[in-house]
């Protein structure tokens, strides 16, 4: 289990500060304004589904790309090899990234949902958080194994497709089998749409996150111990 001590709180505070410094928040203010304008522009009947898509796409992009950017940056500045010799645990590093990045997604989701006139905010937030966790963890795992931005973009394309396409098809009801409602990305989408997810699907999603968490921690530890830096 995660034992929360002062170091973890410090880490989280600094992660938020780094993200502000590197312009993540500014970017998201601009994006949110743009998304809001889009939502105002489209006809009412489309609003809900468009909002769901935007909300879902956001943690997907955020977790994968921002995580890649963060890790590549740390690698290029050799901060990663320094982490290997601090008392920080890989688990703390991973959780701090998951929580700090999902915080942005949750704020954006709340704003967009309000604009689109959603009422079921709580399931929406849970769905957003789960989606954010999945994509951030995938982002971490991929980023620890690559050494250039190009490699990273290539490696994340399949993850975007696997994570994104079924969920989009799902909200438009293109497929409708039971299996469809067990798929973790779709479970998150269901919750973002304010639907009750299948219990089995939810369980599967949580299990997936637990698995990704294990893999991510191991990958991070391995990355710290490898000395190799990267060039950006």
């Amino acid at each position, binding site marked *: 289990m995660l034992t929360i001590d002062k170091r973890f709180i*410090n*880490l989280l505070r600094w992660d938020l500060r780094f993200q502000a410094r*590197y312009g993540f928040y500014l970017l998201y203010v601009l994006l949110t304004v743009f998304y809001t304008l889009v939502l105002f522009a489209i006809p009412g009947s489309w609003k809900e589904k468009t909002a769901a898509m935007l909300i879902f796409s956001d943690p997907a992009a955020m977790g994968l790309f921002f995580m890649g950017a963060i890790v590549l940056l740390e690698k290029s*500045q050799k901060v990663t*090899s*320094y982490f290997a*010799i*601090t008392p920080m645990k890989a688990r703390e590093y991973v959780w701090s990234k998951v929580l700090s990045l999902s915080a942005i997604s949750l704020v954006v989701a709340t704003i967009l949902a309000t604009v689109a006139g959603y009422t079921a905010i709580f399931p929406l937030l849970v769905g957003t958080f789960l989606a954010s966790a999945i994509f951030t963890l995938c982002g971490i795992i991929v980023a620890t194994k690559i050494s250039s931005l190009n490699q990273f973009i290539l490696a994340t394309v399949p993850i975007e497709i696997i994570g994104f396409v079924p969920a989009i098809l799902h909200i438009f009801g293109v497929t409708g089998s039971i299996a469809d409602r067990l798929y973790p990305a779709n479970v998150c989408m269901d919750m973002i749409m304010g639907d009750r997810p299948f219990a089995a699907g939810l369980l599967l999603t949580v299990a997936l996150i637990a698995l990704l968490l294990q893999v991510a921690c191991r990958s991070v530890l391995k990355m710290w111990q490898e000395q190799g*830096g990267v060039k950006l």
Partner: protein
Amino acid sequence: MIQVNNLTFSYSKKPFIEGLSFEVKAGEIFGFLGPSGAGKSTVQKILLGMLPNYEGSAVVGSVECKKHGSNFYQNIGVDFEYSTMYEKLSARENLEFFSSLYRLRHRSIDELLMAVGLENDADKRVADFSKGMKSRLNFIKALVHDPKLLFLDEPTSGLDPTNSRLMKDMILEEKRRGKTILLTTHNMQDATELCDRVAFIVGGKLFALDSPHNLIMSKGAAKVTYTWIENGEQSASCDLTEMAGDKKLRNLIAENRLQSIHSSEPTLNDIFMEITGKTLV
């Protein structure tokens, strides 16, 4: 503080570090000397628990390096041979961030910055620092949590004479504060000046281990070299302790024909060559 016994390690199938044994006592400055590629950084990384696939034993504090937990690092400070800093953050922010990862005893960041002459650059981004400034910052980063054990990888390389002096004084000051320090260097002069004991290492193997003074004294006595004119300039040398028995020298002195005369002690560099058959640089 550190006990290494029959340590064996390699990055590949080819043997590299084989049967290395040594001990570092609490409170001493212990130097690893060797040419590039000798394995100095590798041994440091093993002691830091970063290369767990070794055989034999390497105990730091009372912990076997490959089995360490994360608290192992509470009392260790490391200055890697390259900068390990967030370039977009200021010097002060970097120090604050890294010190926040440790539990206890944070030293004053302002005092540390002052000690290495960076007090006026504290709020500049590290990206705008010169190489020497980064080296100094990297060094005090290893001190923020006031660790008992310091690993310094070539702490004076790339520094101008003034900053190199400053760095050496700070290392000696840390020793006075009771720290155990393990450093690597190519620089014999620094090693002679700083280290209580040095280990000569070449190709992953230990060739000698003693205080610089003993190493210098045990091998080669001080020599006297003199020159005179006789069909052009001639020169000869003899051991300092045998001067009285050197006929040529006595004649030259009696006839007042010496052009020059000087005595020289062997440097650690000469000793290193003599023992390992290799030069340092």
